[in-house]
């Protein structure tokens, strides 16, 4: 699955399932960028075929509703743009 890596401070394992068109996903990416943390993300709407199916399967494991953004911060799952929760989970 194609993952995009954003360089920054290592605060553990941060992974985000996003859509390239989604406003809340953009807000979440902006927040992570402002915090300057290292993270990986994938824009599922830009994937195709098997890759897309695999990403959705993986996402379903964390978030059965398969909604976006879904953030996994050191095995803790946060669904939606939730600024306080995200900051808390990252320990900022």
């Amino acid at each position: 699955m194609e993952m995009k890596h954003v360089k920054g401070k290592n605060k553990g394992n941060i992974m985000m399932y996003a859509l390239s068109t989604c406003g809340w996903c953009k807000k979440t990416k902006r927040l992570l960028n402002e915090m300057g943390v290292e993270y990986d993300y994938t824009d599922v709407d830009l994937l195709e075929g098997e890759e897309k199916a695999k990403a959705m399967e993986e996402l379903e494991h964390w978030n059965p509703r398969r909604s976006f953004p879904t953030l996994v911060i050191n095995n803790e799952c946060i669904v939606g743009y939730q600024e306080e929760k995200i900051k808390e989970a990252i320990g900022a």
Partner: protein
Amino acid sequence: MSDRVEVTGKEVDKLYERLNREAEASGYHLNTDVEHTKDLVEGLLVNEKRYGYWACPCRLAEGIKEKDLDIICPCDYRDPDLNDYGTCYCALYVSQAVLKGEKNLGSIPERRPSSEERKRAKPKSIAKGVSSLPLPVWRCKVCGYLCAREDPPEVCPICKAKKERFERFI
């Protein structure tokens, strides 16, 4: 990987102006967080080029219009979400209370049934007992507008949803 679809700032501004005008004319309001709203308008334009219709930018479309009908903007879930949370799922539209700053915005829960639930859902039965009506009554699934005529209008005069979003009500 899908081809990247490019949208210009001019296209975004044009659609933003149009949606804002149409919303205000019929009692709806766009989010005043213009950065967020224009991000969403850009998403709508990308989805229009990608799928041929305005699939919700914050949901993953299947790319088959029939299966995505309920999430074509304005989606079937906008009005109940405006009622309950003061915002639609992606926060393109907000309520008067949010506009006045009485309510804060954030991500809201997804109201759309899962794909399994959608497959199982049966179409609503038509209300009976008024069969003597001279014309059928059509209901806009987005805003609830009702009209009695042979066929639904091409575009809902209230929320601008297209003809295919109407259901036979009576």
